[in-house]
């Protein structure tokens, strides 16, 4: 007789099915795309879909840590825009006659990291909900970005910089390497350091975590800083890709990033999930957008279509039963 039945069922029951639903969904999208248009079945087109998704993926990585804390960050678009404009301003462009080169990238990313840390400080020390503090700081960052170029778009003329982010090496686009580095860094942070454990613990129960003597505020501030770091990189990539720095470069990133995190199966109440899930979630969104074009669906449906998918996947895959609270 088969003796696995009881144990097997138990394991199956405990298996985290929220991980499976997004993957099945992603495969379904690509199978549909390939059946409608078999010409799409080549590495180059798949890579180009990934490349388009890079700013979204990196922003979503950043906000993943914040969401695992049980907090939320609404400053994604503001910070990414600020970074994009700042980096274009500091590089050689049509308005200035100096070029900080690679330092411009470092300064821009450092600036958003500081904004992120400040976001965490305001949230934890002034004790206001993160969705308010981040909303305010995001608006300030957008405002600062507009102030830098005063309505006149900055065109980057430093081709070395643009090339670094847009060229291909070994038949793979450079920015995919950058994304991989960011991913590995965040994955190790989540899996191998105490930051990862504490972030989960805080998301699980902040009061209990405090009772164990863990400096909760410190780890919250660090997480918001990491998020800022990611938005900064995304902003730089956006600027490099378009060659100009304007404040509306990042439009749409906020909702899509949070949607990507949720689609991947990280719960809004915090305490679980991670960057692998977010990667899948972000690729789903980007694939959907491609799919809409390949399937010749009226592009006016795009936003609504993504909304429907988001709700459907969440209904199927989300761990529910616990009240969702935005801390």
């Amino acid at each position, binding site marked *: 007789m088969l003796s696995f039945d009881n144990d097997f069922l138990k394991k199956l029951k405990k298996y985290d099915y929220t991980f499976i639903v997004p993957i099945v969904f992603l495969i379904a999208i690509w199978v549909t795309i390939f059946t409608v248009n078999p010409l799409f079945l080549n590495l180059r087109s798949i890579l180009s879909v990934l490349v388009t998704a890079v700013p979204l993926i990196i922003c979503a990585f950043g906000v993943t840590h914040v969401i695992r804390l049980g907090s939320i960050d609404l400053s994604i678009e503001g910070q990414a825009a600020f970074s994009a404009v700042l980096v274009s301003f500091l590089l050689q462009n049509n308005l200035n006659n100096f070029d900080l080169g690679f330092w411009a990238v470092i300064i821009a990313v450092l600036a958003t990291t500081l904004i992120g840390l400040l976001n965490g400080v305001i949230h934890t020390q002034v004790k206001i909900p993160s969705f308010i503090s981040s909303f305010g700081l995001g608006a300030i960052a957008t405002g600062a970005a507009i102030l830098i170029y005063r309505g006149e778009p900055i065109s980057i003329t430093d081709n070395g910089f643009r090339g670094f982010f847009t060229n291909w090496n070994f038949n793979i686009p450079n920015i995919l390497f950058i994304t991989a580095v960011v991913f590995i860094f965040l994955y190790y942070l989540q899996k191998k350091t105490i930051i990862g454990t504490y972030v989960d613990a805080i998301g699980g129960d902040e009061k209990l975590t405090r009772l164990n003597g863990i400096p909760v505020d410190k780890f919250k501030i660090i997480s918001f800083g990491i998020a800022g770091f990611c938005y900064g990189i995304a902003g730089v990539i956006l600027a490099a890709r378009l060659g100009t720095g304007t404040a509306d470069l990042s439009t749409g990133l906020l909702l899509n990033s949070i949607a990507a995190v949720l689609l991947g199966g990280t719960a809004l109440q915090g*305490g679980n999930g991670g960057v692998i899930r977010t990667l899948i979630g972000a690729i789903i969104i980007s694939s959907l957008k491609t799919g809409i074009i390949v399937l010749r669906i009226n592009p006016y449906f795009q936003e609504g279509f993504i909304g429907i998918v988001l709700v459907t996947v969440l209904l199927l895959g989300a761990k529910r039963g616990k009240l969702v609270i935005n801390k």
Partner: protein
Amino acid sequence: MTAPYLQLEKMTKEYPGVVALNKVDIKVNYNEVVGLVGENGAGKSTLLKIISGIESPDSGNYFLEGKEVKYNSLLEAHKDGISLVFQEQSLLPNISVAENIFLGSEEKYMKFGMLNKKKMYEETRKYLEMVDSEIDPGTLTGNLEFSDRQMIEIAKSLRIVEESDQKNSIILFDEPTSVLEDEEIKKLFEIINEIKKDHSVIFVSHRLDEVIEISDRVYILKDGKNVEDRPTKNINQKELHNLMVGRSLQEEYYKIKDQNEIDYINGKVVLATNDLTEQKNKNFCDCCFELYEGEILGFAGVQGSGKEQLGRALFGLEQVMGEIKCESYKDIIDFPPEAINRGIAYIPKERSLEGLVFGFDVNDNINLPNYRNINKYGVIDKEEAKEVSRKWVKRLGIKTPSIHTPSGSLSGGNQQKVVLAKWLAINEINILILDHPTRGIDVGAKEEIYELMREVVKRGISIILTSDTLEELIGLSNRIHVMKDGEIVKTFMAEKDNKPTQEQIVSHMV
């Protein structure tokens, strides 16, 4: 004579409106298991919180191995080898067993910012072995059974005292057995006996037989004072219970001379149930009872006997089968508005969670259920609302600076009066379900609540009562139903001059 391992002198702790501990003295010797018993609100949990550093006392001295100490947090106490096994578990469900056991002290396993999980898991196994548990350290804690989590909680405490590097240490158990099965309790006792070889133990429990079995000595707390301490060798459950409950029935205290005489032959039945059964967990089964006009009907029973759930069911807060006959209605009550339509009001024991909207002022709280009567097309008649709340503040003697004071800032007794006022303000209410109405309020305020209850039943309102203490239940009730394992097993009449004794009731409770 050497000093005891741990000694508390004249520990006093006051919370707003209630003295939780009043000059309590306690000694724990090396390698001794000390039991701590007392009724709800006697101060057991507060005492443990002070010993473990979660709360600081208002006054009193705390000696450890003869030296005076002062702890401002749990962690400071941990460093001296004092660890508390929490009653409500302190483990996070969404991280692994190993991560829980080492939460907050991972430095040992850090190298260049990386966490060596393998080593941490191995170390975890060592502690799990101590509690005889074979759980994989990588298991997600939330996936485990409650009793397994209890063992992990103990393993965590062992880790804490071991890491403190003290020669002697103490582990505090706050009601560890309340949810365990017999088999698991046996295992727990084996572990405690093992712990005793190296450490001291304080053991708090509601189950007196267990306290007698496991402890060497037992302290009895009552109303925040310690009554006495006894070696457990020559004490039995009954004696212990008498010491715990203490004072004899006080007629004056419970206003017994004002008790209504109920005519059980011709009197009006205002509510009757038929085979009422809770659906999900069978917390109570086939309960049949009748409530007469002007009666106070008490429900006695140990924790888990289903008495609270029965009360909640009458207000539509539990899923039940059976029949609730009330006025012209005959079916069960699904949700609170139905209950209110039938004139039933419920006063919960978790005043802060279920009874009051803390951010609201007194006026809004009193009128909250009443707004449905004093509005015109949805617009609230504010003047009438204020008049209603002023009237009730005056009638119940609620001590509040004004009706616009936030309810959260009142004392416990006055908060409870606000809860009572909000239901009494509705004219149609004629049945009150009181779930532990005097929990967490001081003696003076209790007396006022008793007076109020007598006054209310004089007006023809009936009360269903569950209570923290049997003494209170006997003192107030006209009749007492004893519940055990979800069934009504015995009914006592409790007329003015013929009250049952606590022993009589207890013998049917256990």
